[in-house]
């Protein structure tokens, strides 16, 4: 980190990087603000939720080098909790005191922003538990552990009474934002989702470029060295994991409100695979890659819906092609060709 301040070339590269990122951000902003004039708001909102999901996932794989294969856990469970809070509100928690009892918090159905907050908080707690377990092993084991824990919580979702099993939680009311703004209007809802997405996107950007983010990148490049420099890398990894899970939770909770539905699809391992695919296609470790990747994959699923089951085969093919032919992803290749940072 010291070198970066002293080395004029590095400083120049940094300002150049900031400029390219600022231009790309403005372009993205303009496109997303104007997008409802050419595309369906519901499609765009879906893509935005997945874009945020992929950005959250990328925070781990791209900047700490940790491949979580179970991010559906946070996405899906945050969706369940926010759907429940928005539709029913009342919380019934089991606790043990010589026998099982129910502890009831008599909440009314909550407004969407509180429901999303509740979903994100759930994801944060789940991320803390799963992350604390998963960082006990390195590399490839990390991926297997996150996948296994997510599968465990998938089975919980199948069995737990409040998730509605195969039916999911349906007819979730969109409600009024802050009790004021009616979200039943698609365009209004789109801009609310857009603001939320941009806020989280900028937060992730801030995290990546903070001193904390620099330590994360140091861990990615050479963990033993980071340890020998005195960083408690486990704490950094756990913190990054919790942040990533929480933001994935925001994405899942928002998706549940937008689609008025929380279902098993969002906690299944295929969802974990999908977010990996989006990030890989866009570019691992790029700021804008996950956003583009999410739009590419969501539109692909939209337009290829008529092929039915072949979608899985196509997705598998894209995985193979990405790994063998262009590991940098779309944005990564562009950034490399233009010699800028994106």
């Amino acid at each position, binding site marked *: 980190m010291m070198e970066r301040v002293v080395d004029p070339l590095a400083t120049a590269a940094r300002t150049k990087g900031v400029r390219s990122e600022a231009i790309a951000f403005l372009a993205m902003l303009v496109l997303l603000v104007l997008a409802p004039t050419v595309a369906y708001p519901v499609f765009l909102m879906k893509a935005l939720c997945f874009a945020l999901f992929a950005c959250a996932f990328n925070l781990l*794989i791209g900047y700490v080098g940790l491949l979580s294969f179970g991010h559906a856990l946070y996405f899906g469970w945050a969706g369940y909790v926010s759907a429940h809070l928005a539709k029913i509100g009342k919380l019934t928690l089991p606790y043990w005191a010589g026998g099982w009892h129910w502890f009831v918090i008599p909440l009314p159905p909550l407004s969407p922003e509180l429901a999303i907050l509740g979903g994100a908080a759930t994801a944060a707690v789940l991320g803390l538990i799963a992350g604390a377990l998963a960082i006990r092993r390195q*590399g490839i084991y990390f*991926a297997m552990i996150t996948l*296994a824990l997510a599968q465990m919580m998938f089975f919980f979702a199948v069995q737990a009474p409040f998730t509605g099993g195969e039916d999911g939680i349906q007819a979730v009311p969109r409600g009024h934002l802050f009790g004021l703004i009616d979200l039943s209007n698609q365009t209004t809802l789109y801009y609310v989702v857009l603001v939320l997405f941009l806020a989280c996107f900028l937060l992730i950007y801030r995290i990546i470029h903070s001193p904390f983010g620099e330590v994360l990148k140091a861990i990615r490049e050479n963990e033993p060295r980071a340890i020998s420099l005195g960083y408690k890398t486990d704490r950094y990894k756990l913190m990054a994991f919790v942040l990533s899970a929480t933001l994935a939770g925001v994405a899942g909770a928002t998706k549940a409100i937008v689609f008025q539905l929380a279902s098993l699809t969002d906690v299944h391992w295929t969802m974990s695979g999908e977010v990996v695919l989006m990030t890989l296609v866009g570019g691992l470790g790029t700021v804008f890659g996950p956003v583009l990747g999410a739009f590419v994959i969501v539109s692909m699923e939209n337009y290829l819906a008529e092929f039915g089951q072949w979608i*899985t085969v196509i997705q598998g093919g894209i995985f*193979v092609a990405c790994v*063998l032919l262009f590991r940098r992803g779309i944005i990564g290749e562009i950034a490399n060709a233009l010699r800028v940072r994106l």
Partner: protein
Amino acid sequence: MSTIFGIPSQALFGQLLIGLINGSFYALLSLGLAVIFGMLNIINFTHGAQYMMGAFVAYLVLQLGGLNYWAALIVAPIVVGLTGVIIERLFLQRLYKLDHLYGLLLTFGLALIIQGVFRNYYGSSGLPYQVPEQLRGGQNLGFMFLPNYRAWVIFFSLGVCLATWFVIERTRLGAYLRAATENPTLVRAFGINVPRMITLTYGFGVGLAAIAGVMAAPIYNVSPLMGEDIIIVVFAVVVIGGMGSIMGAIVTGFGLGVIEGLTKVFFPEASNTVIFVIMAIVLLIRPAGLFGRAA
């Protein structure tokens, strides 16, 4: 009827048997994963799909060629092993210099392709496969009824596991293999064709999955989805056992199968999740896994 812990002994032993059978599949699959990981440094996500392919080869050679179960037990591992060799030559060998993660992602993609293609042709519902004639019926052991086929599955997979252990730990070929796992460059310098050994190792590991698939065919139906969930459980098994030890993989596989079976008797709601819970506990107590070496 006699009871043990308030459970009818029939039910208890019945679930124990199912547990042993699942355990033998876990053992065969995690053994294959461990062998592949040792040589290729790749976690083979395609393993579940290759287990499914083994069952399908058994089904197809019966439908098309009239070859019975016993022939399938030999043909399936060879066919699936050959596809494994092709996969290794075409794709995996390009990844050895890269981060492990790319191997996982590539094999995940291959699993999606294989499972997707089979699902398109054969649908999601299972196809029936008959128990071979010689193994129909069963033995009355007094305390339970033991179907012959299930006894065969347990003994045969135990045999395959032990033979694998013997080959790797006690023969010259196994010694080369273990040496190449430790230091491929040095083994190459002794004039051993390490790349070919890697290819064959992958074919062999995949063949083990196919054997498990053939044995599973008469018990569960032959279905494109049969490998989808089992591979995640096997990952948990591998995390619990650690991939450093062949015997560890076998013991963990059978042991966890039995525990899962017992959970079905005493606390059925948790039977799907018990292996994952055990994984979490093992991670807390012994992060390197039961038989693993510390990283």
